[in-house]
């Protein structure tokens, strides 16, 4: 490398670096363009997309009824064995849902159970803050009342 090339290298390198630094400086002085969410400060206003896949929930109507019939199709569809549908019999001797056990810790939020359900009884919720203080907090019973 001749001296001339070496000089052009040094100054060219510095020049191109300043060009790059101009980009950095631009964003430093234009914080409006950033996309970072100010979480958790914006927790109250933060809304997920409607399709968002949070933990599995079982919607209940005002009377506390759900649509699950205890058919166990979701249990079969789950790749991780996160769902156990424990059935029982009601007073009339009909098979009904007893407990709908859902283990959040082994769930990969894949939504295959929701796809498999023919009655629209479960769906993926909007909750994304899934951390718990205790492992027992991951064992959820999704139906509120037994035997319906």
């Amino acid at each position, binding site marked *: 490398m001749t001296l001339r090339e070496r000089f052009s*290298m040094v100054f060219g*390198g510095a020049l191109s670096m300043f*060009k*790059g630094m101009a980009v950095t400086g631009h964003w430093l002085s234009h914080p409006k363009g950033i*996309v970072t969410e100010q979480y958790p400060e914006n927790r109250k206003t933060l809304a997920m*997309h409607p399709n968002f896949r949070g933990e599995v929930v079982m919607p209940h109507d005002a009377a506390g009824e759900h649509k699950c019939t205890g058919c166990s199709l979701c249990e079969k*569809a*789950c*790749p991780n064995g996160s769902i156990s549908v424990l059935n029982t019999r009601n007073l009339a001797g009909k098979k009904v849902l007893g407990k709908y056990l859902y283990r959040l810790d082994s769930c990969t939020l894949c939504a295959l159970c929701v796809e498999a359900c023919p009655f629209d009884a479960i769906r993926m919720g909007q909750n994304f803050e899934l951390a718990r203080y205790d492992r027992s907090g991951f064992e959820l019973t999704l139906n509120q009342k037994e035997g319906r």
Partner: protein
Amino acid sequence: MELVPATDQALPPGFLTARSGRATEEYFINMGPQHPSTHGVLRLVLRLDGETVVEVVPHLGYIHRGIEKQAEAQTYLQYLHLTDRMDYLSSHHNNHAVCLAIEKAMGIGVPERGEYIRIIVDELQRIQSHLVFFACFGADLGALTCILQGFKAREYITDLFDAVCGSRLTMNFFRPGGSVRDVPEDFTDRVRAVCGKVDAMLAEFDRLLTGNLITKERARGIGVLPRAEAIALGCTGPVLRGSGVDFDLRKKAPYGYYDRFEFSVPLGEAGDSWDRYLIRMEEMRQSLRILEQACRSFPGGPYRSKEKPAYRLPTGTWFGAVETPRGVFSTWIVAEKGEKPWRIHSRSPSLANLAALNPMCVGHKIADLITILATIDPVIPDMDR
């Protein structure tokens, strides 16, 4: 530099050659598995002479989850969601390959709209993955603005995936015969808006890094992979095309509707790190071209052919391959009677590309090893599975 087999000294496992005739003493050093520049839990054992790399031996297995074995206990639909977790930067492509194999086996067709959705989503993810490459490449070389800006541009696409697929990283979106749900009405407008933003960011990236002489000097002539060696090692994707081999599955064996779109496949000449970088930057522009064409002719109609209650593949072997951002991902299914596969094997691009690391690094300095590793663009969970 003469290489002779080891005789006089015991070498750690994996090292093949001993070099004699040097007064200096060689030493061994561990890079990783917790090193930020290895992009994950990859452990590299380096054999160094001063600062010069003599040999590199990668050790894998730190994130092995036995996905191929797990697949044998799962139905095909359940297996799909596991492929997301191999190469998390190209989960749509992985889903796509498995879907192709299942569709071939069961004779399922995909409606026109479904194919368009697949191509748009695939190409968005290619851009997304290359943006992560840009971010990490810059950060590995010490340009920290790159990682912020690269991830910022990626966020536009991630947000779109979040809205369309319901998840940011492991989308689990494709199903045999199409996709799990239809795209929203304003999908093409949103894709166009994202493309516009990414295009503007690419121009910025050129000012930031591509035009930077220091980056150029640090990448040019570093990690040269000769054409013949790239082919012999089974490299694919930008690593192979960087060495000047014109091989892209989208052109050579078009799946889906790729033969309907106009795009070119950028090729390198020297096969060095700089070429691999430039190729990825150009591939993003080509993907933008495909997206533009796809948005223009986005058809209506059904997005998925009729769903089957269960996917039972006929006995036999089935194969599906796609071009992911990192190269050829293919899946090979040995099907038996029933809903579960007998065996599934995946060919992941990252593992084959990693084989090229040692030949590329020999004789370079440690700092160059970081550059070379970054231009391989490895995804470690894809190697281990």
